[in-house]
């Protein structure tokens, strides 16, 4: 298993060395979201009986976890594929499960680190409750793992940086922005409420928020099941790709 340990270590070192860009920058972006949205809406709006700013904070934390976990594994893979340095991890005796676990764990760790950063800089702005902390940790980890695994799929599939950027801008961004980070889906028209229920990221955000306030749009158990099922599907896809050597070994 030392192949796994070293690969994980290398992946963490990779983002840690450019932490200003990989950790500090997304934290700042989230802080700006909070300041702008809440200064416009805070005084008027309450969602599910919660002050808007308080409602927003867990959403922003989870969004950062998801986006950064995805960014980490996908950009690491595409970068090493494009530069050719991917052979350094293809030549050693590292099995495909170890490979998957290392990339996914590193991605989840970056997501969680950014999430902690966002939480640290935003939690002082508005009172937060911790109604069910167990759910907070479960969704924290599951969200990072899910998008870390999804990043592996995207990073292997994409041949060029712009393909990956397309993936990120046209799939990940809309899915996260329309997942209820900034609003409760109950405020949407009925049709879009239904559509939102097909967005797995909605459940990640919603379940995570439940951990703070004890209220949510969907039942947390349902969110957990959807999250685990999504993780299972994405992980299986990533593992199949890695086992067959799809786009990595020819």
């Amino acid at each position, binding site marked *: 298993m030392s192949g796994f*340990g070293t690969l994980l270590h290398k992946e963490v*070192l990779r983002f840690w060395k450019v932490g200003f860009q990989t950790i500090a920058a997304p934290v700042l972006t989230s802080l700006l979201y909070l300041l702008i949205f809440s200064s416009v809406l805070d005084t008027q709006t309450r969602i599910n009986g919660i002050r808007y700013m308080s409602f927003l904070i867990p959403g922003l934390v989870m969004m950062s976890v998801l986006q950064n976990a995805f960014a980490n594994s996908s950009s690491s893979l595409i970068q090493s594929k494009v*530069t050719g*340095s991917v052979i350094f991890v293809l030549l*050693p005796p590292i099995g495909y499960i170890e490979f998957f676990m290392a990339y996914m764990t590193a991605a989840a760790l970056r997501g969680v680190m950014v999430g902690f950063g966002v939480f640290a800089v935003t939690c002082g702005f508005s009172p937060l409750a911790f109604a069910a902390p167990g759910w907070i940790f479960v969704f924290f980890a599951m969200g990072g793992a899910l998008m870390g695994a999804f990043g592996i799929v995207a990073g292997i599939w994409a041949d060029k940086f712009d393909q990956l950027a397309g993936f990120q801008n046209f799939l990940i961004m809309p899915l996260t922005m329309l997942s209820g980070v900034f609003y409760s889906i109950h405020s949407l028209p009925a049709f879009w409420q239904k559509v939102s229920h097909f967005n797995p990221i909605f459940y990640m955000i919603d379940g995570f928020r439940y951990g703070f306030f004890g209220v949510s749009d969907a039942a947390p158990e349902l969110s957990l099941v959807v999250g685990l099922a999504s993780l299972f599907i994405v992980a299986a896809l990533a593992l199949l790709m890695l086992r067959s050597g799809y786009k990595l070994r020819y």
Partner: protein
Amino acid sequence: MGVAVSLQNVRKAFGALRAIDGISLEIEEGEFFGLLGPNGAGKTTLISCLAGLARADAGKLSVMGFDVVGDYRETRRRLGIVPQELVFDPFFTVRETLRIQSGYFGVLRNDAWIDELLENLDLSQKADVNMRSLSGGMKRRVLIAQALVHKPQVIVLDEPTAGVDVELRQILWQFIRRLNREGHTVILTTHYLEEAESLCGRIAMLNRGRVVALDTTRNLLAENANRVLSMRLKNGNILPEALRSRSVLDQGHWVFRLDALEDIEPLLAAVRESAQVFEELQLLQTDLEDVFVRVMRGNDGIGKSDEKGATV
């Protein structure tokens, strides 16, 4: 000594292109083996199949008795590959790069050997420098060190000296020779035939995905000897009429291709009989480049009909 690398009827196609078209080879432990061939002959594809970077369509490949597909962990642990492309990970220093690579192979706390590698490849000064700021030659050295960091029993060098200065070549070959003497099997592909001639005990020549010659370097040179005699005569360089048909005039020299050394004496006698005097006389030895050109020509079917083509 056992077999280090065994290839049995290996095939690999990319669409209609048969990159490897049925190659069988056995390389003994401790050999210094050369894999030569023009661009596109299949050398790199063959190495990729061995390393697990590519999957052969058919055939069996093994390293130190382990199958490269079924026992991939065992074979990869025993293989050290220096890739042709100059690749590097821009996030790390030289030492970090080597420590990480070592860890991938399960060799932790390997600093003594890493220091030795840095020393031998003249990289000690650059140990803590980021990969990005190294020159091309220095990056090449790191690639070589990366391939050797887990002390592989079989070292595969895919054109390691392409675009490399004389100094590094000497450093590299000195080091690789030492490893070979210590028992490591070395497989080398190179475009520098004089390198292959001086280093490799045995050579396989590849063309269009097939082995077209396979023998010891000594035998390849001897069998394709075809010595060349070049002469220039005094008083106008006029060659006797009887010899003209056997010779070609090349930059003021009459050039004869001889099948055997015994053919020299009658030729000289004929010149003497015509009362000519030599101004210059040279017997040129075949080098590997001549052999290579002859084998490739023979294999392509455009050489002379009496030429020995493939020995396999």
